[in-house]
């Protein structure tokens, strides 16, 4: 049912780029995985992506910086942030503009709900 939706996974951690696309394909989405924000911006997927699963902390451009860049380029793509930094008490270093943020490790159910909510905002 979601066959036409392309989701881009951007994470510097290889195990995430390996495991998350398989799960998302099981959900029925098309998936493209990138090791950095820069690689994503340079790819053909940029214009086709309908949802981003985006690691917050990466070497080079961070998740929130990519979000800023997309807004600047007028790509209004819904984003689900993911992060391994579990300190929930610390305020986010950059505003996440209403985007959801999943703390690693997260369940397949939470991921599914987050993507559904993000796509609904489109």
């Amino acid at each position, binding site marked *: 049912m979601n066959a036409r939706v392309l989701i881009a996974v951007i994470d510097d*951690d290889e*195990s*995430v780029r*390996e*495991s*998350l696309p*398989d*799960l998302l394909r*099981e959900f029925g989405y098309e998936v493209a995985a990138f090791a950095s924000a820069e690689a994503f911006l340079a790819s053909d997927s940029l214009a086709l992506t309908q949802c981003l699963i985006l690691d917050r*902390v990466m070497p080079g451009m961070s998740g929130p910086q990519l979000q800023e860049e997309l807004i600047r380029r007028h790509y209004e793509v819904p984003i689900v942030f*993911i992060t*391994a*930094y*579990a*300190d929930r008490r610390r305020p986010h270093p950059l505003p996440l503009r209403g985007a959801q943020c999943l*703390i*690693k*490790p*997260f*369940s*397949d159910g939470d991921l599914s709900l987050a993507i559904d909510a993000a796509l609904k905002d489109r």
Partner: protein
Amino acid sequence: MNNPLQRVVDALPALVWTATAQGDTDFLNQRWRDYTGLTVAQSLGRGWQVAVHADDLTSVTIAWEHAISTGEPYEVEHRLRGADGVYRWFNARGVPLRGPDGEIAQWSVLQVDIDEQKRTHALHSGEKRLLKMVARGRPLATVLTELCKLLDATAEGCFASVLLLDRSGKRVQQVIGPGLPASCFNFRDDEPFTCAAGPFGLSAQQRKQVVVADIEHDLRWADGSWPAHALAHGLKSCWSSPILSLPGELLGIFAIYRRDTGTPSAVHQGLTQQFSFIASIAIERAQSEDALKRSEAFLARAQHISATGSFSWHLGSGEITLSQQYCRIFELDPAEPITLERILARVHPDDRALMRDMIERVRTDGGDFDFDCRLLMPDQTVKYLQFANGAIRQNDQIEYIGAVRDVTSQRLSDEALNTVRSELAHVSRVASLGTLTASIAHEVNQPLSGIITNASTCLRMLGAVPPNINGALETARRTIRDGNRAAEVISRLRTLFSKNLISAEAVDLNEATREVLALIRIELQKNRVVVHLDMADDLPPVTCDRVQLQQVILNLLLNASEAMIEVHDRPRVMLITTAHDADDCVRLAVRDEGTGITAQDVERLFGAFYTTKADGMGMGLSISRSIIESHNGQLLAEPNDGPGATFWFAIPRQPCFDPVDDRSASLPRTEP
């Protein structure tokens, strides 16, 4: 004249005359006539009264008429004009001569010259008055003006003046000469006072008297303006003498001017010497008073700036003297009488016993001692004071003097500093643990995330119709791989505290412990923990990482302190023991008397994430144990026989570090 008796009477060194019972003069001796220059005819009857000074005539007339009418002796002092027109003081005494019938037949009067005596007396009383003025601290100008007036009154035709010089002795500060017009003295205070200025300059330079007997013809200042200026004021002679202090310092010039030419007589010289001396006393007194006032002002200012007050307490009389700053510190009204009770009332109730004890010590042994004490002000603020006291004995009387310093702001800043230091110790402890926890969480969460995602995918693939067996196998394999990766992260963390990161040095465990104690002294005081130290004297140094070891000690001490926070029914005693064990280990034990632990707790205590504290990370003991074990030592805990627990560690003096794989010994990632 041929009457021998009359010859005797004429030769008497006194003025003698006789009068009738009615008071009419009928005889005057030769001396009378010589002195007054009056003829007998001029003087007969009441004629002699023309020579009486106008100011004294009334009293003379009254006294004479009274004697005549009552027959009582005639006695009066009055001035009598001489033939040269100069008045001199005389003492006049007259007695009646009575006939056989007892009636007064004649009066005989003797007049003695008391002028010298009178002047000497006036001079003495004038000098006495001047010295009294000096003693009473009257303004210097007033005293010197009186001094000049006295000289003018004492020495006929003389006009005295005093030039006051400044401290350098080179400039005129003030001129006093009440008998002369101010225009006489045209000194400028911005010009040096030199010999060329006039005889005063010369006198100042030579420090001796300079006599100008004839201003008009004296050639010494012929080139200057002084002679003409003096002559223009009708002055013909001038005698200047230096006024010297006892040590010989030039204070000023005492000068006498006259409207005629001439040199000073012996009388003038005596007066000059005497008056210069009085002037020097007056000037020196004024100068030392100025110096005293200045030094008092300095002292008051210094006391104000340094927040130091001084006081004296005369034990015999009980008299207490407080400096202005002392009153300010104690907030006492200096106008009200100062009593010990008023001072004691300001002392903090908790320190009053101490203060009374100090007062008692003063009374009994009067020694020197210092102490600290607090004040409680009416607005409930507390002041911290330092007292430094000593006793002075004088003629068997003890005077107790002291200084008190307000160290409140210093004390408060010390306390603030200690609080900051203690908070810093806390923050750094928490921060290092916090950073570590965040790194551990990140490192562990990455593989965990993979495990959970892969396992979820695996389940979905297996649950699909038909099941995706190859995909499921792949994801299951990844799950195992990520699981191993997580285990690897944990073991890498453990090696963090191993050989590669240890900077080994010889550490004195006692000293290291004392340093930590110093760091958390305030923290322990705040928790009212009483620390007992039992440190081995013969402790050998141990080779270890000083900072890591101190982290462990800090952790144990803070844990022990926190364990006793709930203790209210007994002292919160912490016993720190160091020892050199038989197996060449050094040991440190921290024993608290807190809530204690059970035997079952002991092992769980050292597991990561175990904590009894609501806000704790539960990492302290686990990390501490890792540190000690990396030094080949052991960290253990055991319940006490009584309340509380003892945590102790022992490390060998020369630890052999575990061989560690260098590649796994990298630091955990931290958040950028």
